[in-house]
């Protein structure tokens, strides 16, 4: 049986009257790419913020790599990397400066941070633009830098919150290849996206969230099988069937 790297039990979070996360439980196995899908406002980002220690849960337990987020957030932070949905970058600094800065913040020494920054830039196909100002980069390049920063400090678990929003197919494909490469190196990845084909292609298992709850969790194949022939139905069909066709704000 695969080793559980992250265990989430009965997680709750409310903002005033809004129950953003309402009793979420799931586990992610070591080396797995776990997809978290859901319409806007389903509670995905709130869940990721709680898992990545930046938002305190009202109730529930999160264990990552054997450490409790509540009791030992510091230890959890030392083994996670976060690639937020927004481009959390300093656009006035160069790509290298950005990466070295976040590397230093993750506790790396200067030379070590610089070496790993160059390595990650190479991985993202941006080694030639190391000294370029991020503000002048294209959307796809910024997305790749955003992901490269999350890799600083060699995390064991990576949170990728819609890492491919608004980029061209080439950049998206490059990011996919990198994510698959990272998985091969043993990284555990939690991946959220609105693109069903991405989840279908990348994720070992997929959880679908709606209304702050997980309404389905299985492999892509098994989820499809729930509504028809896996060869004929798509993940999007499953998603729409489970979450409905009404528009979300």
């Amino acid at each position: 049986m695969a080793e559980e790297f992250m265990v989430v039990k009965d997680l709750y979070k409310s903002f005033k009257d809004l129950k953003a996360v309402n009793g979420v439980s799931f586990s992610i196995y070591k080396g797995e790419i776990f997809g978290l899908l859901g319409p806007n406002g389903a509670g995905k980002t709130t869940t990721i913020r709680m898992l990545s220690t930046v938002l305190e849960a009202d109730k529930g337990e999160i264990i990552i790599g054997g450490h409790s987020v509540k009791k030992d957030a510091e230890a959890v932070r030392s083994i996670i990397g976060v690639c937020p949905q927004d481009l959390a970058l300093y656009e006035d600094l160069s790509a290298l400066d950005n990466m070295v800065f976040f590397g230093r913040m993750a506790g790396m020494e200067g030379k070590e941070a610089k070496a790993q920054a160059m390595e990650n830039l190479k991985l993202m196909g941006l080694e030639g633009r190391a000294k370029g100002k991020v503000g002048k980069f294209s959307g796809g390049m910024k997305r790749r830098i955003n992901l490269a920063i999350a890799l600083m400090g060699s995390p064991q678990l990576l949170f990728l919150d819609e890492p491919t929003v608004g980029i061209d197919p080439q950049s998206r494909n490059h990011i996919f290849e990198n994510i698959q490469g990272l998985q091969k190196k043993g990284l555990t990845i939690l991946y959220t996206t609105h693109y069903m084909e991405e989840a279908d292609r990348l994720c070992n298992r997929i959880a679908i969230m709606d209304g702050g709850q997980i309404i389905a969790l299985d492999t892509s194949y098994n989820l499809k099988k729930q509504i028809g022939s896996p060869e004929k139905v798509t993940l999007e069909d499953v998603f729409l069937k489970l979450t409905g066709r009404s528009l979300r704000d």
Partner: protein
Amino acid sequence: MKHLTHIWFIALKDLKIFAKDRASVFFFIVFPFMFIVLFTFLLQGTGGEDNRVELHMATREASGGLSQQIIGAIVTPDESLLKPGDPVIIWDKDYEASRQAVIDGELEGLLAFPADFTQSVMTGEKTKLEIFSDAGATYARAALNSIAGAISSQISTDKVVIDASISLLVGSGAIPADSESIDRATQQLLNAAMSGAAPGGSDSFLTYKIVNVGDVEAGNASDFVIPGYLVMFVFFAAAVSAQRIVWERQNHTLERLLASSVKRESILGGIYTGTFIRGLIQIIIFWVVGILVFNVDLGLSPPAVIILSVLMVIMSAAFALMLATLARTMRSAASLAVLTSLLLAPLGGCWWPSFLYPEWLQNIAKITPHAWATSGFNKLMLFGADFGDALPSMLALLVFALIFGIIAAWRFRTSAT
């Protein structure tokens, strides 16, 4: 140690971003000097001419009265002998005409003795010196008040001494104990005092001293303009940086730092340190250029000027953090920064000296850190004050910094939601 390292790297990162932003560098450092050059040029020569204060005195007593001798003793005999800054004391022989001249606005003020002045002093009854002054003639009124105070104090002292002398003389039998003899002796002693032949050998019944701190020179407008604009732009630059803090909160870089083992306190400390260092760079440039190019005089206590400047930076950086915690969006942060800076600067005496304001406005201005800072700089650089005189301003800036800092620390959040 780890947290200090985080604070330092966050501050360094902010400074690096600042240095790479040419518009910011121009706006924070070059732009203020454009104002300084302009206003120094416009105000140059103000105070250069010797605007000697004229103090007019008159008496309603008949000749031979005590008041005549007092005025005679202190009137300016020859204006050419006066030192720069000394007032001219003029004896107006026609009390009514002088009083009318004050009412008509021809004279700034008048100190007048009442008709029963000598009689009242002799009998120990209360008497009043009259001061008429133009409501706007602040300096003349202050000077006349001061002379009236000196006269009344000196008369009171002399009267005590004379009364005691008379008692001794009566006790020893040198003077008969009847009131006529006592009055005569009192009159003689007072006259002796007025004529400068009083026991003790003083030259005159009334002396006064003007202490000039340093030489009176043509005023250097920069001595006022540079501290004023330093206060304004150090505060403005810090306040505007609140916008960047809100931006970092909105684009989740602060949250990303939090997820990278950086404590909330370290983030707060790093941002504060970066803003503080930028302010320090600003004041160093202000004073170095001020001294080398504008010939600014830091006064008798340069360390006090420096400490006051540093406290201004400490307070401004704390204000920036507080502003960032109160503003929800970048636009509101920018608007609040501009609004507070443009309101507080003139109210606090950055554009013109607050000691020229009416008293009620000066009292209102005390709610602004700017007023405390500029009054401290003005005391030190314009009025020859020493370190101790600037302590209230320093203390006030420290209190403002603490209040802003506590609010910032209490409300600071790394996330927009």
